[in-house]
């Protein structure tokens, strides 16, 4: 029941915010803030029940044991074997917490940026948070697809209505890419369901029932590909990444934060939760290709980031590069790599979200994102610049900050699977250092560029500072003491790993091939 509340609160909050917008422009902001805090308060207690009730130390799970912290299951469309089935494990929980925290940050930083149709803006923001939480909770494949599509619509409006210059182009591109790949996934889901029906006589969309459905390797491969493409577009993995720089660059700050911080994570989550466990053998056979795509993504996107003059585009490409690590880690599919993937998702959500907030704040002040027109900003707005540098170096993977843990664990995990890929991916860290330091160098250091309104340039205000401080503390916390998070997700990952373990022959063959 508590899971239903998690969804219900922001959904209703969105309606309230929309209605309140007609009365007073500030009411939706307070409503959104209030609603998300309530949602956070609902979600936080789940954290403690998880850690107290499950055995943390053992990552070995006996067959049949589950890691669900909370469940909810009601018939929804019984005629088609669809139920409203929500399940929460540690992995879902940490991602939902990230979602709510970044949602809160988005509301606060939009306080001054969004002055137009405030009610509708916050309604869309809350609804897209609802959709994402739904994606992290749904365990019925139809329900999952429902939320997967549902989160697109408000996001589309956020970009199309409150974005920058080329917002319509970017919004439509974003929508068509994700929707098209989503329909491929729908077809794959249905084929899987029909195969399952053929085998057992049950027509059901229940994930737990569909696990372990037997099918020929060829069929499994094509179905796996259908799911993989949908998630790879969302992640995004090269070569499906082209929507992302446009969408991120044109979105309003809150939109970029939600996109980078949360929506990209749904792709990674889908890979971990669905692609590998549902089609273990096919996924493991496909792993070399997927890992290669991940490595290419890391390097290629880093190179592109290096070449950008638009600060927001640089951050957007750095996202693609970081998600390459996630892809590498997921398909390495061992405990270390998966823990790294979770850490990378959290750290990337926070650091990239923070960078987008800072770019947005800068744009609000100097009305440009072009780094050629910046320089020497440290002198005029030191607090913003200091946080900028902090999150830039977090993003390049400096030890002591969360991203380092993520990348290090992923590389450590994938080293067991494929040495060449790991070595090439590690060079991506160097490329990451290059573009992150370049950003700091060009924007904050160097000679001060004459700003037209330099006199009026004000530093970060208290609300922004508070958001930045929380995000900075979180990323330092993740970097210095990541164990609680790893413990939280361990049972869930162990179950997933067990479901996603390939039949013996396949894994052996793969390890030999890549060696």
């Amino acid at each position: 029941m508590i899971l239903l509340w998690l969804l219900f609160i922001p959904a209703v909050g969105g309606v309230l915010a929309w209605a309140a917008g007609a009365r007073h422009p500030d009411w939706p902001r307070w409503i959104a803030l209030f609603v998300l805090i309530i949602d956070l308060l609902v979600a936080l207690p789940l954290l403690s029940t998880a850690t107290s009730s499950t055995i943390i130390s053992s990552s070995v799970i006996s067959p049949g044991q589950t890691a669900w912290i909370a469940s909810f299951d009601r018939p929804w469309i019984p005629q088609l074997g669809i139920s409203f089935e929500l399940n929460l494990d540690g992995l879902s929980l940490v991602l939902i917490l990230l979602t709510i925290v970044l949602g809160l940050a988005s509301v606060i930083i939009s306080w001054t940026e969004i002055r137009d149709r405030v009610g509708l803006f916050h309604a869309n923001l809350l609804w897209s948070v609802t959709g994402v939480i739904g994606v992290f909770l749904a365990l019925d494949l139809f329900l999952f697809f429902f939320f997967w599509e549902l989160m697109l619509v408000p996001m589309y409006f956020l970009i199309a209505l409150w974005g920058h210059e080329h917002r319509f182009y970017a919004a439509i591109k974003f929508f068509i890419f994700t929707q098209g790949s989503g329909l491929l996934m729908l077809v794959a889901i249905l084929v899987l369901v029909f195969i399952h029906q053929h085998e057992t006589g049950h027509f059901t969309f229940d994930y737990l029932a569909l696990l372990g459905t037997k099918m020929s390797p060829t069929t499994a491969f094509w179905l796996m590909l259908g799911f993989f493409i949908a998630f790879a577009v969302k992640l995004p993995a090269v070569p499906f990444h082209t929507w992302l720089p446009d969408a991120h660059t044109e979105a309003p700050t809150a939109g970029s934060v939600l996109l980078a911080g949360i929506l990209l994570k749904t792709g990674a989550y889908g890979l971990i939760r669905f692609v590998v466990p549902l089609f273990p053998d096919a996924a493991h056979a496909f792993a070399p290709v997927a890992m290669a795509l991940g490595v290419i993504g890391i390097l290629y996107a880093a190179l592109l980031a290096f070449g950008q003059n638009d600060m927001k585009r640089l951050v957007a490409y750095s996202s693609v590069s970081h998600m390459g690590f996630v892809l590498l880690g997921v398909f390495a599919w061992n405990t270390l790599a998966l823990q790294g993937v979770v850490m990378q998702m959290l750290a990337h959500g926070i650091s990239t979200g923070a960078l987008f907030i800072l770019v947005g704040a800068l744009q609000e002040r100097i009305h440009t994102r072009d780094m050629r027109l910046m320089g020497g900003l440290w002198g005029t707005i030191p607090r913003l610049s200091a946080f900028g540098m902090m999150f830039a170096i977090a993003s390049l993977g400096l030890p002591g900050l969360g991203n380092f843990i993520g990348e290090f664990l992923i590389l450590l995990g994938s080293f067991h699977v494929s040495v060449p890929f790991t070595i090439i991916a590690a060079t991506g860290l160097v490329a990451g250092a290059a573009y992150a330091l370049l950003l700091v160098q060009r924007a904050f250091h160097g000679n001060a560029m004459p700003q037209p309104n330099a006199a009026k340039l004000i530093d970060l205000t208290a609300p922004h500072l508070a958001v930045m401080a929380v995000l900075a503390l979180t990323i330092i916390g993740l970097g210095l003491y990541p164990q609680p998070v790893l413990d939280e997700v361990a049972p869930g990952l162990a179950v997933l790993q067990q479901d996603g373990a390939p039949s013996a022959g396949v894994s052996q063959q793969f390890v030999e091939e890549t060696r």
Partner: protein
Amino acid sequence: MTAAAFVAFAPFTLLGVVTIAVMLLIAIHRSHRLTALSTIIGLAFCCIALPLAAPSTPTQVTPLFIVDGTVLFYSGLVLGSALVVAVLSYVYLDGQARGPREEYYLLLLMATLGAAVLPASIHFASFFLGLETLSISLLGLIAYVSPRDYPAEAATKYLILGGAASAFLLFGMALIYIDLGTMSFAQIGVLARAGTQLDLYRLVGVAMILTGIGFKLSLVPFHMWTPDIYEGAPAPITGFIAVVSKIAVFAVILRYFILAGGQADTALRTGLAGIAILSMLGGNLLALLQNNLKRLLAYSSIAHFGYLLVAFLAAGSLGVQAAAFYLAAYAVANLGAFGIIALLNTSGAGRDTDRIEDYRGLFRTRPFLAGSLALMLLSLAGMPPTMGFIGKFYLVVAGVGAGLFWPVAALVLGSVIGLYYYLRVLVAMAMPVPDEQTCAPTAVSPLIGNALIAILLFLLLVFGTYPAPAIALIRMTIGSTP
């Protein structure tokens, strides 16, 4: 006719009585409001009569008609949609003062009568009579209060092309009659299954019937008339053409192919699959080029009937249910969209408010109508949380279940293309208002119109998030009959 047959056929008899009563009423006292009111009440009574007739079904009524669950569902859809069109027409015509407006409702009732009996037809005679009653009344409706300066243009096009289509249909029926000596669907099926080889007469006959139906459902390559008629007809009538007439024709052709055994014919199935793929891709691609919302919806309806053919080809109980649900979703979304176009109409403009640039800034000037239109279009695009999403999902379930690889692939591709033009309208509505003078709240749309849109919106969202009752209803009515 037995007593049970009388009861079962009562909704249709009642509709005939209402038509005559309205005609007499016009002769006695001319009043737009009174005529509209009696039409609406009459249609509402017919809708109520349908579930009352349910206990005495299935019943065959003369060799021409059968009343069973399928009929109740599709005729209900037809009558309900006609009711919505009647209300919209009242709002639409109320603002226009030129000429007598009362006979419009008479034509509307006759067209509805023709459409309502089509799903019940099991004989070529009733099939053709229903279709012609529908088409000829529509002809009058299209020209009756045309929003454009040349009212006869669209009607003439419909007359000539529709006439040609009817001729094809009639000729096809005649050829089949020559071959088999019967005009009853069921007997055609029995004889066709008994015959060993495919006769040339029958082959040509079926092809000609398909051509005629292709015109009526505006499937590629018989779609040429659609955009012009949609643009030229007044918005409520465009809604009627898009929803009522197409649903009726789809229902009768579904029955014909099930009873007459066309489903088993591989050559025919391949042809239909080809038409479906062409319609899905052609309709969506051509819609990309449109700058007029009515023309855009015309091309989108071509694509939608392409999607529906996937369910048609899938056959089986799943396909039949999917088609029924999809048609219901299609009806709600299209009636909503055309209803909003009708409500936005400003009299004396020489055309409906149908260019996409007319919709700029609508979110600001008319937030309720703009929000509703956005959801209607999202439903047509198949996005949650609307009926269109569940409908499209159902179609894909049926298509994948029947292993129709290419049609399903075309459906996916078509949907992706389709998104682009639906989103274009949404984007236009979100853009800033072009000039300040139109920014002022020009007209407040009548309460009854807004209430109607609100009801459609409610259906769209409720059955989009909780479709189980709708599916249960479809299973109850259609599931019981083949």
